[in-house]
């Protein structure tokens, strides 16, 4: 009995130390990937001019859609904008922009200045609707397929690595 206890005790401590060791090299920051693989359901978004509600029909037309959350007051959004412009050239990908907690005039000015890569623009003035997409900051982008299933989530401004990855997925 004593030997069993001694053995088990040593084993438990060893296990704890090994787990600690492997945890040291992990990234403690959190990536919200819980939606990946799930289907997006709640879609009550108003389009930018306020005259029409987006629905799943708009997404079913295309094989792939990239939903991009942006605002005129967000500087990393400016940084990723050229990549969005390049992506808009692809026929296989549709871009839906969701203007997050922004004022219409400022948003329009932003797009006039930098170009409009979006096929469709929706707005979320208070920011509550974006919670349905698991957004906690901007810019964020979600890649969905025809069935509205989330393929990949990009947190922060898109970089060239993300750009290449998106191209690989849609082709």
């Amino acid at each position, binding site marked *: 009995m*004593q030997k069993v206890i001694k053995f088990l005790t040593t084993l438990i401590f060893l296990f704890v*130390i090994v787990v600690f*060791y492997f*945890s*040291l090299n*992990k990234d*403690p920051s959190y990536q919200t990937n819980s939606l990946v693989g799930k289907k997006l359901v709640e879609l009550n978004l108003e389009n930018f001019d306020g005259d029409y509600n987006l629905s799943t029909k708009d997404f079913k037309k295309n094989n792939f859609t990239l939903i991009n959350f942006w605002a005129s007051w967000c500087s990393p959004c400016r940084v990723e904008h050229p990549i969005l412009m390049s992506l808009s050239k692809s026929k296989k990908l549709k871009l839906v922009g969701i203007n997050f*907690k922004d004022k219409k005039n400022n948003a329009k000015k932003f797009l006039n200045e930098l170009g409009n890569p979006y096929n469709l623009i929706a707005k979320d003035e208070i920011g509550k609707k974006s919670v349905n997409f698991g957004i906690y900051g901007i810019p964020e982008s979600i890649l969905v397929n025809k069935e509205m299933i989330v393929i990949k989530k990009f947190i922060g401004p898109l970089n060239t690595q993300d750009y290449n990855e998106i191209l690989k997925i849609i082709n």
Partner: protein
Amino acid sequence: MLSNLGNILLFINVFLSVLIIYFASQNIKTSGNSISETIYQTTLLQTTLIFGCFFTLVAAFITSDFSLINVFENSHTSKPLLYKISGSWGNHEGSLMLWVIILTIFSFFFLINNKTHPKNYRLFTLIFQNIIILGFLSFILFNSNPFTLISPAPKEGLGLNPILQDPALAIHPPLLYIGFVGSSIYFSAAMASLITNYSEKFFAKSIKNWVLISWVFQTLGILVGSIWAYYELGWGGFWFWDPVENASLLPWFAMTALFHSLIVLEKRNVLYFWVIILCLLTFVLSVTGTFLVRSGILNSVHTFANDPNRGIYMLSFLCLMIFSSLFLLFKKYRKNNYNINFNSKETYVLINNWFMLFYLLTVLIGTLYPIFTDALTENKISVGPPFYNAVIIPVVVIFLFFMAIGPNVKWIKNKFDNLISFIIIFILALIINFIIVYFFKSFTILSNLIIISSLFLIISSLIDLKKSLEKSKFDLARIISHLSFGFLILFIGLNHNFSLEEDFNMKVGDTKSFNNYEIKFKKLEVKNFKNYKSLIGDLEIKDKKMSQIKTLNPEIRIYESPSTLTYEAAIKTNIIKDYYLTMSNIDRSDFYNIKFQKKPMMFWIWVSCMVLAIGGFLRVFQNAKSN
């Protein structure tokens, strides 16, 4: 120059530690029961020089010597003197200096205060303690040296974080370190006791005051940390089951279990190996806590900057400590025959230990579980207050009953003659609870139970107090501590039950009504201060039931260097309750988020915890007097 001096002193101390270990091992082989003068002199020199080293660092902070990276990162010329000084230990590298100082002081004072105990036991304690000192000194020298230079020396420092400039936070590390770093000495003593087979009651006598002293300071350290969190952090709470808070609580549970078991070991000569396990466990938990907090494994409000290299070093040290103590323990373990009657004080001490271990393991599991699930399944979970409250509070209810009964049970074998008085006390507790419930509308069954059981402990302790004063018996320390613990739980329970909290978005000029209160957002003022600009809100709280009006002024402070925003809560304290108000801005809107809280009994929570520590202090004096 200060940097050179500091580094030289560090190296000398490494050398001295090695020397002490050598002298001690030589002295062990000699016969007789006295320790050589050389050892006393060397340890005295060691203590003096490590203080010198520490003061060198503090001097660098006071003179704002920014050629040291540590001073540059953590200080600023315009910091008040108190915070320049406390800034020296309020960072990772500086706090390691505090570690080493306390390790050394405890080593020295333990040596000279244990002259009636066997020479080899004392020498081995010295050796183990110095191995620990060496471990930390080398950690400082090779990884976290506060005396590292930066060239060219900057003209100004970076460290002006206003949240850290607080008297409670300044004193929090020294208090806490005397607590859990101090537990190193009875870790070393336990190892020494195992090797020299110095067991039973004399060993208990040797370490008991050390355990008590470290417990008192640990309690005070936790208290002060909670006070700081309440006044400075602006969320109105004082305990969040945050991993760093838990890291300070774990050794506390072990210490409490330990000094209760020491009573049994001293009186009845049983539970020796269990006491040894607790001694080893306390310091292991202290080092584990330090590792968790500084290695970057955890995400918390309190964590220091992350650096995996530090983590590897601390993990190796922890590993060494754990496996060497396990090895020695397994080697020396002998089966003991216990002669414990189920109705005796010894049993109640065992019950105390049982519950303490439960709390300890629950908090440990809760803190480590996210780390484990993340490492094994890539899925991150959070374990927070709902878990700890749900698991621990029901058990505390039962624990408080045992806490009241235990001290009244006789040693060896007890008779049930005090059963009737306990039933009367229970009825009294029920009646008082009913009164509270009737007048103030209480809530769940659990909250009722907690109030009943804490009242049971309080009433029973008050009766003990009356008996003790009549007979002039010397159990005052225990009665005071148990009584204040009962009050602590009672006040925390009342505070939790009768707290009010409301969260609104308001514009200047708005009024909101809720329960028996009305809040009016009267105005917003901008004021300029020496190093910050302040947005001061003027809010009027009207208590409709009592027709009282109070004005609270929460602030949003905008600092320049470094560019930070802090939210200062407006707190109005009186004997019965605190009003707590915070105001935060909502981006791109002229609404403000106003959070109002009424928190009853806050003052008494602090007082109870303070008296709890004082009880322990009293016991140390009683012990010292009877020696």
